[in-house]
Structures are given as C-alpha cells and as structure tokens.
C-alpha cells in the first residue's frame, strides 16, 4: 500500500518538467514533418513551444548567429509569447534588442554585446531591459547548469540529417554547451540549419538532443571578428610589441598563452618570425595557444613557431588553411575545425601561463575596463583569460617565476605560482583618448545604473604587467600601492596620469627593473618599422598561406 502511494506521488509531482516539455513538443509536432519545420512556420512553432516568462537561449555567440530564429521570435503574437528571460552569451544582432523594445522579452543575462554596445547602454538607461547580470562566457555557461537553465534553446548549425544529427562546422562555439544544459534538463532544442542532408559530415550534436530543425534560406551570419589588417599596424604598436616579446615572453619563457584581438597582439604575431627569430626565441616562446584562428598568426605557423592551437570559435576565410594544417588545429574526422568556447575558455584559464590583451581604460590600481559611459560591450572571455586561476595546481616555469617575483619570502614549496596577465596598448588610443585614467568610466556607469558591481574587465590585483610604447611595468615587483601607482604612471607617457608621475620614484623603480624602457631592453627604435612585420598586408597573409587563406571581401583591399 505504502509502495504504491510513493510510486503515485513520483509520477505526479517529480516529473512535471518532463511532462511540460512533452506537451510543448506535442504542440510543436503539429507543425513539423518528423523533426523538420518549414521556415514559414517557425514563428508558429515558437508560439507553440515557448511559454510566457520562459528562459530562452537565442544562440548569439561571439561569431555565429541564429538569425532566422531571431527574426521568427521577433514576430510572435505577444498574447502567446511575452516577458521572456533571455540567457545568451552574445547580444549581437539588432533583433536581439528589438525583442525587448517589442515586449517579447523582458529580462537579460548575457556576456558580450560588441556591435550593440551603444544601444544596449541606451536601453538599460531607459529601463527597456531588466538586467540580470553581465557575465564572462564561462560564468554564464556555468549558470546554465545551476540557476539559468534554458527552457528553450534556439541554435544554429551548418547542416542536419533527417533524424536531427547536427554538423556545426568550424563555428561550433557555444552550441554543445547550450544544448547540454537545455536538452538534459527537460528543455526544447530548435536548430536552424543551412541545409538538410542525407548524412552530416560529422556529428557535433546527436539527434536525440534536437527536437526541431528548420532549413534557413541563407547561411547563418558569421562576423569576421579576429582579422586585423597588417596594413593598419603602426610603428608605435610595433615598438610596444617588441617590448612585450623581449621584456616578457623571453625572460619568462612563455610557451602556453592566449592573445587578445587588438592590433598590438597582431603585431606580436607578425614579429615572431622576424624580431623573435633574430632573438633566437623559436621553440622557446609562443608554441601552444588557446586562440581563435587569427590570420595574423599564419606567418608564425608557416615558419614553424606554433605547435598547437585550440579555438573558441573560427574565423571567416580560414577554413581551408585550417583543414590543411591539422597538425596545428583541432579538426574532426571530416577535416574541418572543431571549436568549443567552453573548453577553450577552460584551457585559457587553467593551461595557459599568460594572457595578453588590450583594453580601453586602466586606472591607478591597474583595474581595466572596456566600458565607457555610452557603451557597454560586456565581458566576453577576457576576464577568464586574464585572471589567476586559484584552483591551478600544476607547475610551469613562467608560473613559478611570476609567483616568486610576487612573493619572494614564502617557502617555494608552499608558494602559489602566478599567471602572467599583461595589458598592452598605446598610451593614447583612438582619437587621442588616453588609456590611463584616474577614475574608470565603469564606476560612473555603475553609479548611474545603481549596479552593485562596476563592470571591471580585469581587476588590478590580477594584472602582472602593463606594456606601452614607454616601457614594461612589472607590477609583481611592486611592494605596496604607492609603488604600483608610480609604476603605472611611469609607463603612462604624456597622458595626464603619466605627466603627474613622481619622477624620482619612477627612476628608482626603473633601477630596480620594475619599469624597463626600450633602451633598458636594448631595443633599437629604428627597428620599430613596418618592414619588421612578417606580413604587411592581407595579401601578404594570403601569400604566406599558399593561397589557402581566403579573406572576406571587406579585407580584400588590394
């Protein structure tokens, strides 16, 4: 008697989510043949499977966009679908924000909003969006499995077979993570695909995790985010890149690393086969990367510098090059790149000894932010790349050396290492805006929006080095806040912050090697010349690749 009561209670009260999912699937199935739904029926499909207030992941990645599904969602009948809580890493397409203007969605948790950064700021100020939080990628992915699990995921893939197996192509990016969280917690997964085929080239997402597929009339949108035209690299960036190579990569012997996407790091990539070669550093630095397939790295790969690269996503035009260089990249049995943002972020966090990237503002404590009062670009992956992983336990030469510099007095066997977190940039950025400021715009923004936390990209206590054309500041060697402030002022050049430096203290820091100028590192300013770049144009990159790199049309400037 007791047994049957328990069994009855189990079916009625412990599988409500599964039952709800099944009833959503049943409603959707009326619009499908098998799993296939016609593009013209997609809005009705969404009205059938989405409930008001649902958490919805509309796959907007750093690069790949489920654009057909976002159009369809925008067109829903508001009496059926409204007040959604969007949980997506990228807010990239205008439609992503139109959803809030129209009332389809109300609340937003996200990680990155590159091209929509100005509009998202206006909408937050205007109260159009109820903001949960701005996350890092890994952090939002983590919350998919704890308290932000999607009820419905709208994803993008290259192709599907009729059972629903998906091939995501080189831009796998976030898809496996989104599907894992949704499908295994009673959610509904709808995929837009470029084509339906008899057999997919490889199975990136197994069919039993995919409930509906829609063939889009045009391929999903991918933004070429990681292409930096070598023609736009300045001599100042070349000088700064030489300082980084000789002042940080070489002395620490940094082999495992992640690069940000700015021109300064592109300059480093293009100097490895020239300046780096001359310094005899081949094989000693920059051999293993967590990195998107940056075209600027092609000359270093072709010159034998790079052994292995794992990627968050892909890059437009790099497909054939990657396929032909499978010793370097991760590829599937079909030969094309397999990227994975969650794994690559984890790799950057735990298996890389250095992150080097640029930012928009750095304050006197070394906190940095890409937020300005009119733009909220989000965090993306940089805070995870640019943070010391407190859970790391394996030693490596650069990690131990950095730990020793920070804390010379602790016994070596009990001393944590430190990840090298390097901020690189010119003292003045675009339109002569200074890189160094007394107070970050992010703080002003937090005050204006009554946020509990200012959106700091990289906290000062994680930053180990700042490199500008003025020199390298090693913050690991600073022993107190005053030294740290003067080390930062000492490489801030002729910005207000730089000109207010204590000249005597900066000179003492220089004598201790806390600040190293180009002349201290024996760098000839005449080498800061574009002839030092292994490739000086996109066309040079194509040539280095043996014609395998096919740049998107906006970069074909020859």
């Amino acid at each position, binding site marked *: 008697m007791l047994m049957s009561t328990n069994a009855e209670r189990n079916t009625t009260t412990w599988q409500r989510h599964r039952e709800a999912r099944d009833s959503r699937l049943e409603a959707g199935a009326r619009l499908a043949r098998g799993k296939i739904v016609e593009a013209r029926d997609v809005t009705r499909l969404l009205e059938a499977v989405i409930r008001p207030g649902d958490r919805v992941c509309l796959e907007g990645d750093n690069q790949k966009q489920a654009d057909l599904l976002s159009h369809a969602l925008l067109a829903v009948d508001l009496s059926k679908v409204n007040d959604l809580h969007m949980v997506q890493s990228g807010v990239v397409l205008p439609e992503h924000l139109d959803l809030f203007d129209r009332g389809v969605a109300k609340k937003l948790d996200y990680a990155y909003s590159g091209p929509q950064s100005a509009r998202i700021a206006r909408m937050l100020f205007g109260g159009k969006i109820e903001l949960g939080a701005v996350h890092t990628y890994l952090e939002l992915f983590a919350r998919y499995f704890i308290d932000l699990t999607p009820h419905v995921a709208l994803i993008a893939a290259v192709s599907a077979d009729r059972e629903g197996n998906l091939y995501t192509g080189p831009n796998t990016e976030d898809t496996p993570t989104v599907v894992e969280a949704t499908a295994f917690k009673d959610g509904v997964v709808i995929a837009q695909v470029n084509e339906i085929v008899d057999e997919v080239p490889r199975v990136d997402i197994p069919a039993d995790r995919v409930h509906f597929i829609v063939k889009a009339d045009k391929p999903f949108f991918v933004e070429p985010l990681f292409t930096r035209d070598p023609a736009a690299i300045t*001599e100042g960036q070349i000088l700064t890149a030489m300082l980084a190579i000789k002042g940080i990569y070489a002395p620490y012997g940094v082999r495992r690393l992640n690069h940000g996407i700015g021109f300064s790091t592109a300059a480093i990539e293009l100097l490895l086969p020239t300046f780096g070669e001359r310094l005899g550093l081949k094989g000693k630095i920059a051999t293993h990367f967590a990195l998107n397939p940056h075209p600027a790295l092609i000359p270093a790969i072709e010159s034998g510098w790079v052994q292995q690269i794992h990627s968050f996503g892909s890059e437009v035009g790099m497909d054939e090059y990657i396929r032909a260089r499978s010793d370097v990249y991760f590829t599937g049995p079909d030969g094309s790149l397999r990227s994975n943002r969650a794994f690559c972020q984890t790799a950057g966090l735990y298996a890389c000894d250095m992150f080097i990237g640029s930012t928009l503002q750095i304050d006197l404590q070394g906190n940095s932010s890409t937020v300005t009062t009119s733009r909220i670009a989000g965090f993306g992956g940089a805070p995870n790349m640019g943070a010391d992983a407190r859970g790391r336990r394996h030693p490596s030469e650069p990690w131990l050396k950095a730990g020793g510099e920070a804390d010379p007095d602790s016994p070596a066997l009990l001393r944590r290492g430190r990840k090298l977190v390097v901020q690189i940039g010119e003292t003045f950025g675009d339109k002569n805006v200074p890189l160094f400021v007394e107070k970050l715009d992010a703080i002003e923004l937090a005050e204006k929006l009554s946020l509990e936390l200012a959106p700091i990209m990289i906290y000062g206590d994680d930053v180990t080095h700042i490199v500008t054309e003025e020199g390298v500041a090693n913050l690991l060697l600073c022993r107190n806040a005053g030294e740290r402030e003067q080390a930062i002022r000492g490489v801030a050049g002729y910005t207000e912050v730089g000109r207010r430096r204590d000249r005597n203290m900066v000179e003492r820091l220089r004598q201790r090697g806390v600040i190293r100028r180009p002349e201290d590192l024996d760098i000839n300013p005449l080498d800061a010349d574009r002839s030092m770049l292994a490739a000086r144009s996109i066309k040079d990159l194509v040539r280095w690749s043996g014609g395998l790199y096919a740049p998107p049309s906006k970069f074909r400037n020859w």
Partner: protein
Amino acid sequence: MEDLSFQHRARGRAGGSRQNAIVGVVASGNLEVLVERTLPDAECRLEIKTAAVGFGEVWTAVIGDFVERYSPGGLRFSINDGGARPDTVSLRLAQAVRLIEEDGR
C-alpha cells in the same frame, strides 16, 4: 600653425660621426625630423613647426624627457609636425638620434 623652440643643455655629445639624418614624413598624425650636428657638444636645440596649436606644455614635457634619456649633445632638430601624438613624437626623436649615431655614410 605654431612655431615652438627649445634650447637644452645635454649631458654629453651624441655618439657617431654622421652629420645629418632624417626620419618620418609630414602627414596627418605623423612628423618629419631633420637632425644636424651643428652645435657645440653640450647644447641641443629643437625647432618645431606644428599644425596643432596649444600643445606647448606637452611638447615641453616630451622634449625634456627626450633630452634626459638620449643626451643629444651637439644636435639641432628641425621638426615639421602634422599633429602627431606625443608617443609618435618620442619615437621619431629617438629614431633620429639613433640614426645619426649609426656609423657609415
């Protein structure tokens, strides 16, 4: 346009034997520096024609640091500036000294 002129004492004579050198180009955001070895060993002079008006204080700071770091004694610099940023000015001045200190020609 604005004309600026600076006269400094240098710690010592700039190295090398070359009599003159030129680096850079006059273009927006760039500058051209002509350097000539025409002054007594402890003197240094810089004459600037700049397209950007009102930056005298920044020029003073950039040139003060430059003279201290590179000790360009005996050199006279003629600068045509197209509104370059201070970091570009610093780089060109450093390049000019380095070039005149190189041997040959």
